[in-house]
């Protein structure tokens, strides 16, 4: 059986490494990108089953990348989990609505993410 392919996008290499380790250990194949633009390039060149996308990134942020992916008929079906660095509970709720409203991401998670929580969300969307 083929492994599901996940694209992981964040500008902090340590963060990417750590999430990659967790996701790979659950049996997924992981590709990485370090900004929105690079993510679009990866998406154009390969087929992914799911994208984990950080919002705050240089060059092109997660919102913009998400919008582009959802606008493209070739990729609009790929589920996206948005990550935000907001830890505070109150602002999280606000961000949830805001982020879900302005982008068509399927789900969202605050950073840092609990490994179990992340894997559960990924599973749910696949």
């Amino acid at each position, binding site marked *: 059986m083929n492994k599901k392919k996940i694209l992981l996008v964040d500008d902090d290499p*340590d963060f990417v490494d*750590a*999430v990659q380790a967790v996701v790979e250990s659950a049996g997924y194949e992981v590709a990485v990108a*370090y900004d929105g633009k690079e993510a679009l390039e990866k998406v154009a060149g390969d087929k992914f089953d799911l994208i984990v996308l950080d919002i*705050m990134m*240089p060059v092109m942020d997660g919102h913009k990348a998400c919008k582009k992916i959802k606008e493209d008929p070739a990729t609009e079906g790929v589920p996206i989990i948005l990550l935000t*660095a907001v830890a505070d509970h109150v602002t999280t709720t606000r961000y949830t609505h805001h982020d879900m409203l302005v982008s068509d991401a399927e789900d969202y998670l605050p950073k840092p*993410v609990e490994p179990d929580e992340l894997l559960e969300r990924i599973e749910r969307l696949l």
Partner: protein
Amino acid sequence: MPEPLHILVVDDEKVIRDGCARVLSGQEHRVDTAPDGSAALDLLKTGIFDIVLLDLMMPEVDGFEVLEWIKRNRPDTRVIVITGFATVQKAVEAMKCGAFDFVGKPFTPDYLRIVVRRAAENRSLLNETERLRQEKVSDLYTIAQEQSRLKTVFNCIEGAVLVTNREGKVVLHNPAAVGVLDLASKPVVGQPVSRVLRHPDAANMIKNVTNDLTAVTREFEPGTLSPLHLRACCAPVHTATGKIFGSVTVFEDVTTQKQVEQLKSEFVSMLAHELRAPLAAIEQMIHAARSSTAEERRAHFLNRIRERTRSLLQMIENLLNLSRLDAGSTAFTLEPARGDQLLAEVVELIRPRADDKHIRLVHVPAEEQWWVRVDHEQICGVFTNVLDNAVKYTPDGGEVNISMVKKGGLAVVRIADTGIGISPEDLPNIFDRFFRVKSGATRGITGSGLGLSLAKRIVEAHRGRIEAESQPGRGTTFKISLPLAMSQESVRAGQP
């Protein structure tokens, strides 16, 4: 007791002169006498008399001539004419010419005293009147001065001051109002305030304040009343019984204050992000290290966690140093230091990190000894920072050169690397707080984004400067210029 007066008695009859002198001297007055007109004039020209008793009928210079002279030259002096009954007509004539009173011969001592006292009283009344008049003039002068002072104060007020009457018309404004409120060039006094101010909210505010008799403070965003951000304090003017006179409004320019607040809030959110991102990465790595089964992977994450934690601590340290520099509470201890020795210390500190990346650190000491007056710790911090950056942003196997050239009283230390370089767009920003070049080439390089802004502040506090030039892909050169220390100081420090 009447005040003592200076009296002149002019009469050709010795009996009269002496008689008068005796009577008046007895009253503590000082009395001079003159036997004729010309002697009287001599005395009048050299002294000031309060009262002159003057015989009209004298040989040669007669009384009228003396009277005329007194009126012209001593207007304060009271003249009492002495006259015989036969010449009452003359006395009347003399009164017309300005004599104060007359006594007819013969006269009793009491009568003389009465006439003199009357003259004295008249004199002191007139003096009092004059004193009051002068007091009034000086009061008026004080008021005028006070008014002019208030007017000066009013005109000097930096904020715009606008005074309206109860009909809402402008009755007064200071010169600043024209600029601050961007008033139309034509005179605004007498105009309704709604026509003068560029936003209806301001006119309504003044109208409401005048109606409700309660003071109001509100702000006007840039572009409403003027290009400035204004804070208006509007207060009604009324009597104790509530009779309305109008309103006074002061518009204060708070643009700079608002900009500072804005910068502060931007800085705080930037700082929050700069702290949050590494902490999120650290926590994520803790998760990964925990769940990792491979020992090698776990060791990698633990190493990175340590690295990121240190970097965070360094950032906080830098932040505190910068804030201390901003507040001016950093004390610099300037001492003569041998330049190349200082650089060598820093080079040895960085060498292990350079060795890890197989980067050659080349420090070429100058031929002559050179000295700088610096705070050793702070300047070492600057060189460490720049050298550490050079090693960080130079790929493995590169080279970093450290050298010094003297230039017009300055020691210019060059730290040149063969690293990835900085693009022309990024170069002007590298000394900004939290600025970090983000690209594929800088990925994984940790830093606080504060090191160079701190270095710049410290170098500038030493009256030096720091600048960078760069060729992307070829390398970056930092030049740190510090004033060379006088040779005398070197001597004092016990060095050749």
